[in-house]
């Protein structure tokens, strides 16, 4: 239920495939979140590094939380370059009830932004510049810097 792609995401294909896969599970609400690369700051693309082992354990923790509420999460993310106006990230919650789905998609996407082990770079000309100002230290960061 966590898909990593080495290209930009095919939004219609993913939204349709996930919907079709879950049709038989009697969910009442399906809420995808589609993240699209905005044209800004003169970039031609964004580029992503993903640390897959920790991303998978982070995702599994969320899937367990969702399951306890009868819900299910699906997620896809790109590795490498994703052009302006293309999609790098899709997450979706399926749930019997709308309230649970609305709350999960919000909490999941916010925690994803804050703690998922993925690094973003602006592609400017042929340079790849770490998006330091938009990045957030993972919860519990900094212990190695505290011993001085």
């Amino acid at each position: 239920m966590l898909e990593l792609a080495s290209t930009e995401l095919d939004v219609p294909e993913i939204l349709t495939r996930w919907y079709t896969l879950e049709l038989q599970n009697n969910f009442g609400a399906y809420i995808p979140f589609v993240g699209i690369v905005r044209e800004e700051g003169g970039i031609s693309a964004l580029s992503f590094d993903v640390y897959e082992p920790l991303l998978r354990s982070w995702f599994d923790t969320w899937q367990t939380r969702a399951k306890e509420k009868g819900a299910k999460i699906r997620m896809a993310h790109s590795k490498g370059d994703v052009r302006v106006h293309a999609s790098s990230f899709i997450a979706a919650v399926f749930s019997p009830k709308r309230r649970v789905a609305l709350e999960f998609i919000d909490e999941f996407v916010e925690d994803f932004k804050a703690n998922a082990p993925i690094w973003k770079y602006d592609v400017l000309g042929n340079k790849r510049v770490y998006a330091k100002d938009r990045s957030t230290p993972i919860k519990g960061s900094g212990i190695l810097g505290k011993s001085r």
Partner: protein
Amino acid sequence: MIYVEFLGPIPKESVEIEAASLRELSDILSRDEDVKEWLSSSAVAVNDTLVSSLDTKLKSGDRVSLLPPVCGG
């Protein structure tokens, strides 16, 4: 020996280091010019589990990962 990897934008290749705890590793890395500025903003995983204490013991073969600030999506 433990194996230390620097993820994402940290400009350093993986290295093998002799250290018995994260505290000891911290002492070593804080003398490394390429890495020291990243220490106060990076999370630490030992064998792909995030850890929160400098007193975490390390044993030969352990893999320590430094995770700088993230921004997915």
